[in-house]
């Protein structure tokens, strides 16, 4: 793939990510937000492929799009009656929020673009990293890996316990 095509595709996915993230935040309709978040997650997954983290990209699609987004949609459907007109989400603190958005983003961008010390290493990640992730998981990161699996199990049991419906007559 030529360098120019690469650049164009990168900008395309960057635009999808940032615009749909903006739409998530600025639209008033909760359902539109949830579906726009889908495009953000796919765009971020594409950026992960650009960052040669293909395994993380697939995990992003499976976990975020297949899991978290479905959970969020369940939450939206649970808490809004679909039969009624789509519920608008109110906003508050719009001026401090805009100031925060502009301030944080501007300050970060200023820092990034005025720092001239970004020197890429000689050995940047290239190609697929699935094999290296496997080695790292089973060697250096085996304790965090086991801990996070137990945490996930406990969190999911806790979530199922919290969200259960009380049986009538008990």
């Amino acid at each position, binding site marked *: 793939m030529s360098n120019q095509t690469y650049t164009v595709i990168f900008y395309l996915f960057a635009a999808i*990510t940032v615009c749909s993230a903006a739409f998530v935040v600025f639209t008033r309709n909760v359902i539109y937000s949830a579906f726009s978040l889908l495009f953000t997650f796919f765009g971020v997954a594409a*950026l992960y492929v650009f960052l040669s983290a293909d395994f993380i990209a697939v995990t992003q699609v499976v976990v975020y799009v297949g899991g978290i987004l479905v959970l969020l949609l369940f939450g939206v459907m649970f808490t809004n009656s679909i039969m009624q007109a789509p519920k608008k*989400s109110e906003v508050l603190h719009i001026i401090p929020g805009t100031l925060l958005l502009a301030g944080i983003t501007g300050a970060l961008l200023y820092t990034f673009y005025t720092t001239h010390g970004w020197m890429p290493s*000689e050995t940047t990640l290239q190609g697929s990293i699935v094999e290296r992730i496997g080695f790292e998981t089973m060697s250096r990161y085996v304790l965090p890996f086991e801990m996070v699996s137990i945490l996930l199990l406990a969190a999911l049991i806790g979530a199922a316990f919290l969200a259960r419906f009380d049986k009538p007559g008990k």
Partner: protein
Amino acid sequence: MEQLTTIGLNHYLTISAFLLGFGLFAVMTRKNAIVVLMGVELILNAANINFLAFSKYNGGMEGVMFALFIIVIAAAEAAIALAIVINIFKLYKSVDVSSIDSMKE
């Protein structure tokens, strides 16, 4: 021009800065608890992009592993938070975070 056409670290950092800003904006301004959760997911994605970008241009695997663990933690967080939101909805019949101001019925 050369900085625009060769994709470097700054491009990824820019996208992540925007995602972080939008996430903070959602957390701060929206009243619906589920949209606040979406803002938190945006912030976590911004952190993930930063980790992976620095990991790529550094050549190490630390950022990649950290991103993997962040995704797991985000899944756990979303499950617990939505369970809590559904409980709040059962109790208050709304998910408006600014109207939930008592700790006990």
